[in-house]
């Protein structure tokens, strides 16, 4: 599942970064506490958060995340888009709630496994 797939699955819109990146999602972390996010030791994390701030992007960069999704269509600041572009982190805005986004991603993973 690449960032382009994530955009499609979550009815999202790519707001910054490279939407054609071939990196696949290794794990999904849905969390609004950045210190919690820093605890996850997984590769290619997709960070799902309602924290629409630069810190979500900076945290994603620190853990080597492959992308960030801000759910509930929260407005994203210009600086957040700039930081995402500068650090090369694809940033997606989705209108779904955190729960619905998690369910859709889970279903998509199951479908991927079956295929």
């Amino acid at each position, binding site marked *: 599942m690449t960032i382009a797939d994530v955009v499609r699955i979550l009815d999202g819109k790519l707001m910054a970064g490279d939407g054609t990146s071939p990196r696949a999602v290794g794990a999904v972390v849905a969390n609004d*506490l950045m210190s919690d996010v*820093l*605890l996850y030791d997984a590769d290619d994390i997709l960070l799902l958060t309602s924290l629409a*701030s630069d*810190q979500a992007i*900076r*945290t994603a960069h*620190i853990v*080597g995340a492959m992308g960030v999704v801000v759910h509930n269509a929260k407005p994203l600041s210009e600086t957040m888009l700039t930081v995402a572009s500068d650090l090369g982190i694809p940033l997606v805005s989705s209108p779904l709630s955190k729960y619905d986004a998690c369910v859709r991603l889970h279903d998509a993973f199951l479908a991927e496994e079956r295929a």
Partner: protein
Amino acid sequence: MAEGYNPTILQGQQTSDDEILANTPLDAKALGGDSSEIIMELLQRFKVRDVMKRQVICIPRKATMRDAQKILRDNRISGVPVSENGRLYGLVSVNDIIKGLDGGWMEEPCEAHMAKNLVVLEGGMPLAFALRYFNNYTYGRFPVLDSDRKLVGIISQRDVMRALLYELSVEIRKLERKTSPKAAEAEQEAKENFYRKEWAVVHNDLSRAGHAANAIKGILRERKIDRSIVRRVAVAAYELEINICIHSHGGVLVLLIADNSVSITAKDRGPGIKDIEWACRDGTSTANDWIRSMGFGAGMGLSNSKRVSDKFEIESEVGKFTIVQCIFDLPKAESAGKEGGA
């Protein structure tokens, strides 16, 4: 102080001592001369821009004298420039605050009471000029403007002394090296295997917080250090940077890459930690709601830093400082010198 007011910070890249040296090649004449000649040579060779502080805390004209007082107190500085979009309007010093307390105008905008007839320096002036200004005037600091008259830094006597002392010590080392080839060899080897860089972290400036940790990650990746080590170092750097930003009066984050280890050191100017054991426990925090709304303050900062480090040390004195050091062991092949110089 009125809520919602934040100081602006001029975020220039600080010139490191090594950069100063690189930009000011040593004149061989100086080595042969006596100490006063060396100092005169240094004063001409250095420019104001080489030694000034580039990270300047500024306040806007509408900020009150009370705001200015808090900035001076929180940052332990004796004067703050009043500046908007790089244009310098004036300066509020401790003397102005004392007059304000006496006269009862602390809640009035600082533009009404700041010093307006300022003596300023230009970045390209030789350091000798700055020294002459310090002798001729009683001011403790001078704002520094560029050729477009924009504020680019501030210089104090302490900055001048720091640069001169550092340079003199380098000159002395060079003289020693001339007489001892073996020592020169050892020093060259040590220099190749060390990399040091530090970043200033400003209290409550969450828009910049994480900037240093992101840079540290980039530096370590460039050096092709193992990914899992890079990640652990970056996590510690980020947590400590956020801690300085939200809990302290401001400080620095220092990265040191040595032959067999990487260390991250966070030093701040207080307020210090009363109970270190309590502060290092998971889930304990003194963060307020604003900090929590920004995604931090879960009380994981110190414990996360400790968890990812091979060696963790913390020292604090209430009202004075906190120093946290995280050390990460590098396998022999990861040593800093193998991937190029600093």
